[in-house]
């Protein structure tokens, strides 16, 4: 039996990791992956919560989260594919057609 605190700590660490990746990686694919990690961190947290209180809410939530993650990823990949026409190296920083700085 793992203490829920441990699990929650892991979830937090994963979340931070994802966040870090989001902030640090330039490639859009990695950005998408970071988001997935963050979402999964949340999923883990729900499992932890379900574990702590012994109710199924957490597991239901996890399924929903996975759904969301999948949908997001799908949409993201479509857009990335389209973007490749313009930006071959998929550097997120060069996706800056829309900006306010001349």
């Amino acid at each position: 039996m793992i203490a829920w605190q441990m699990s929650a700590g892991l979830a937090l660490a994963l979340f931070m990791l994802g966040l870090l990746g989001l902030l640090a990686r330039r490639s859009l694919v990695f950005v998408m992956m970071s988001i997935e990690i963050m979402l999964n961190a949340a999923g883990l947290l729900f499992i932890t919560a379900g574990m702590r209180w012994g109710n199924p809410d957490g597991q239901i939530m996890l399924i929903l989260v996975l759904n969301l993650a999948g949908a997001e990823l799908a949409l993201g990949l479509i857009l990335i594919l389209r973007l490749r026409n313009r930006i071959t190296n998929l550097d997120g920083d060069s996706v800056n057609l829309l900006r306010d700085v001349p």
Partner: protein
Amino acid sequence: MNLQGAAPLVILTILAGGLPGVVAIKRCYRLISAVAGLGLMAALLSIPYALQAPVPALPAMFTFNALSLGFIGLILVSALLILILASTYWQAETPLRREEYPLLFVAGILGATVLAAAANFMMLFIGLETMTLAMIGMIAYPLFRPGAEEAGMKYLVLSGMSSSFVLFGIGLIELSSGSLDIAQIIAATPADAASREMLIAGLAMLAIGTGFKLSVVPFHIWVPDVYAGAPAPTGAYVAVIAKLGVLAILIRVINLPGVSLPASVQTLITVIAILSMLAGNLLALLQDNLKRILGYSSIAHLGYLLVAILAAGTIGQVAVVFYIVAYAITMIGAFGVISVLSRSSAARDVDKVLELRGLFWTRPALAAVMTLFLLSLAGIPPALGFIAKMYIMAAGVHTQLWGLLAIMVVSGVIGLFYYLNIILVMSMKPHTDEALPGVLAISIPNRLAIAMVSLPILAFGIAPSPLIALLKLMFD
């Protein structure tokens, strides 16, 4: 199981489920739009019926009361108007098929409705994400436009980030309290300090997500790019529908019995309000892109709205809703004008301020209603926005938020500048050698929709009493 109270939701669900079938039967944009419109209308008309429900429908998942149904009504009215305004925007000769747009549209509305009525965090989450995902699709719908796909990408990443925060926040809340029911969590007091902090951290992360959707400073950063890149009808959608859903649940939470905003929340809202009012207006000051201006303007307006939220009491409550109504109608109108002037077949929308040059001379009526919308945004009579601003100021004065009022005045003056600038450009003499935006034909439904938007803005701007009375019903 009595579903009377959930009638609008039921109709929308059927609609969202059935529309792909319609597409499969016959790929006809008009037909699909009409079906979507009729469905939305049916949902709207079912609201009085839903209000008379003897027992609450789906009490575990949703709260259907005057407040939430009122917001749903508002969402549906807005949706209908946007849908009509979008009708000529999507052109047949588009490289893309346009028939899926109403599908996404209705799905998003379903999400917003669920969000508005959600009673627990699970529903909140489902509604939020349904709405968001649909919106990503709508933003990036004209994929052949580099701006649209880029806006979609930005919105996807940043909303993904905010969704993670929301989810993690919900997770923390559940971890600390073991419940997902909103009312329960708000009412309960956490057992120990650690749980309490976890709960607060969770709520804070929820606040971040809310802030993102409401596009208030410092979560506003995506707004201008997305508004500028998205097609004009989607712009209205993002500016209005998304915010309505989130505001609905926010206001419902605030209005739960026994809720009073703790000092820390008040501080947070105050800071955010001040920053939003000032930054929104300052950012728009010398902006030359109309959609960006509307984006910045929405930032500032949400700042004003937060002032009203801070000002509790009956005036504050109605002030908030009144302001939301004024904001929603006006934004739809402003984006609607861009919509009717733009076509999806073009490389981009008519969204440069200078492209409106001479509108007063070429299309005086359109220019007049656009002026009315801008006056409403600026809060000048005889437009609805004026009464709304007065309402907020009344709430602010009533609760003696002098500092916030002062900021409101200052930022209001800054804001005037760019609204006026647009009016000025419209009033300039047109270049004779240029193709004018005004030469496009404007369809009858579009004209009707514009009229339906501008009429209440003018009428309630002069005599707001009926609207006030109506909105007061939401709090009974």
